[in-house]
């Protein structure tokens, strides 16, 4: 008799872990290899760094690792003891505290040679990066992307494109070499390819049963954040996409007997992904997609390979949480239709105000327009002190009851 295979196992995970390990080893030994390290925000323009052979490091990705390994509360408390308010984003708190003790699962991030902060994700990152620039006593480049309420004005466009040019000059000064525009073109091309492949990976979950879930996407997202613009990423996502298609062909779903398809909004609860995925799975519900991991693919069509500088500036300005609630809603409603969602789970994330703002209006619009149940889960992406399992359980149970009721079950 053959052993029953475990459908929850995704083969590529092993490769992903190897790539991430190699990446962090490279970053931590950069100095010995004569390479520079830049810390950069997750939504920041990374392609120019790769073009200059600088190793980009993402405190947010690192904070997510701190969350998954359940080391966040200690570090958050440490930051609070240092005087930072509990109301500050927990990614920032974890990172600021971690830098002082070299804590976390990999013994801290490598020391930065300089910092790049793009405020297209929030205002918190500006203060956070200023704190770190002072702590490490290194230069900081701030890339300012005006918030897009309706349209992106010509003035705003000129303003961000000009900053791209200033960014290149900053990099030339930091690296002591000329900025290579041809190389940038090549990197941008790879980066767009990575985003396209990632979009294809995510699209596989439109299939029934979904070959993977948003919980898997949260994990596999790591590469698009950290290494987009390199060949490694493209090879990896090709492999992952093929694995997903193979699962589809063999009718393998990530959960047993998937009956309900759910969408997730906002960042994950890094310390509770297993519990949440088991809880939903116990109701035969699969989180098939989410706005967070899809955010990287919402803007790929804006990138014009013939005009890398201008179009990069545009794409980085238009990221998911730098746009109005109306535009966010457009993206979300397209997803509800394309993924045939039976319900929407919104994580009201105490840390991330720009992402959580407007969620009640969004939920109301979704229920008016699509008639599907919505669930608001109040928690935090890292700070487990803001999550209550038994209350979440009741909310999830009730939400699934509403989905069943709607389907007449």
């Amino acid at each position, binding site marked *: 008799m053959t052993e029953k295979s475990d459908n929850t196992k995704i083969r590529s995970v092993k490769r992903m872990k190897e790539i991430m390990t190699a990446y962090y080893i490279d970053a931590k030994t950069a100095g010995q290899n004569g390479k520079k390290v830049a810390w950069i925000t997750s939504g920041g323009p990374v392609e120019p760094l790769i073009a200059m052979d600088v190793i980009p490091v993402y405190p947010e990705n690192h904070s997510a690792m701190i969350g998954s390994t359940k080391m966040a509360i200690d570090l958050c408390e440490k930051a609070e003891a240092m005087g930072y308010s509990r109301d500050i984003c927990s990614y920032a708190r974890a990172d600021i505290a971690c830098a002082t003790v070299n804590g976390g699962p990999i013994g801290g991030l490598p020391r930065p040679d300089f910092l790049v902060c793009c405020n297209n994700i929030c205002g918190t990152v500006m203060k956070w990066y200023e704190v770190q620039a002072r702590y490490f006593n290194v230069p900081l480049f701030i890339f300012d992307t005006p918030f897009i309420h309706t349209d992106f004005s010509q003035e705003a466009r000129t303003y961000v494109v000009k900053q791209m040019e200033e960014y290149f000059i900053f990099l030339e000064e930091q690296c002591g070499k000329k900025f290579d525009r041809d190389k940038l073109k090549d990197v941008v091309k790879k980066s767009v390819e990575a985003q396209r492949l990632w979009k294809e990976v995510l699209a596989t979950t439109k299939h029934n049963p979904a070959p993977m879930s948003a919980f898997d996407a949260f994990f596999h997202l790591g590469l698009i954040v950290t290494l987009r613009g390199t060949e490694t990423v493209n090879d990896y996502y090709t492999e992952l996409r093929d694995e997903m298609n193979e699962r589809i062909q063999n009718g393998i779903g990530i959960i047993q007997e998937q009956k309900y398809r759910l969408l997730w909004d906002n960042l994950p609860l890094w310390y509770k992904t297993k519990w949440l995925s088991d809880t939903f799975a116990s109701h035969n519900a699969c989180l098939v997609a989410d706005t967070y991991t899809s955010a990287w693919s919402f803007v790929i069509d804006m990138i014009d390979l013939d005009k890398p500088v201008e179009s990069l500036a545009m794409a980085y300005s238009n990221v998911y949480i730098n746009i109005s609630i109306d535009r966010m809603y457009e993206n979300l409603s397209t997803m509800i239709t394309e993924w045939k969602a039976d319900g929407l789970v919104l994580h009201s994330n105490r840390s991330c105000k720009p992402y959580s703002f407007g969620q009640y209006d969004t939920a109301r619009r979704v229920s008016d327009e699509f008639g599907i149940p919505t669930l608001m889960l109040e928690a935090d992406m890292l700070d487990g002190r803001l999550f209550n399992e038994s209350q979440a359980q009741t909310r999830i149970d009730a939400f699934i009851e509403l989905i069943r009721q*709607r389907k007449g079950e």
Partner: protein
Amino acid sequence: MISAGIDIGSITSKVVILDDGRIYGSKIGFTGYNAERAGSSIYNSLIEELGIKHENVNSIVATGYGRNSVQFADKTYTEILCHAAGAFYNNSDIRTIIDIGGQDSKVISLSADGNVKDFCMNDKCAAGTGRFLEVIARALEIDLENFARLSLQSGKPASISTTCTVFAESEVISLIAKGESRENIIAGIHDSVASRLSSMVYRVGLNPPVMMTGGVAKNSGLVKAIENRLGTGVLVPESAQINGALGAALLAAKQNYRQ
């Protein structure tokens, strides 16, 4: 056909027995630390009083935070569905339910056919719950039963600025120290709970008629404060405290699990 609904709340547990869809009997008791024992002992003593044998009960549904500890239940549902079913049974015009429980409060919106449209529960905090009122009653050394009467005598409700139970308790203590009357303090407390609850109502959308369920609904002072905040009347059914168990029994009655 006989069906039973068991609602294990954080403070009290309630059992309702229906005979062919009509309330045959009900009982309320304290949950204590052993939810499983509370459920079975209240249930057993009720069926004994009613002269019913367990074997003759056709279906049992459990609800409430301790629903999963009722081993002898045929099925469990959350309080949301049960409160909706109970309220709709009482009055099928109801569109909004406010339930204040011991450790959480919820607002449920219903569609015309009695289905749940949306719900909202208070966050990880006791403010706006039965527990909150208990803590304040202790600080004031007044029985909760007297809260309604006293608050309705208030000339000018004190302003309670904080919504956190622990801080509100110390705020109340400092109001006492300043010589504020108990009537005004209680009215102020009711208003602060009402303000929290009404914002939950607006989250799911205020759709009258509104019904209030749960043991706290017996407090007419609080009901009045909520009416003032919402600008609409709030109905309190006779069976407010057992509404969740009633709903559970009604849902149980839909299915005969042990023919």
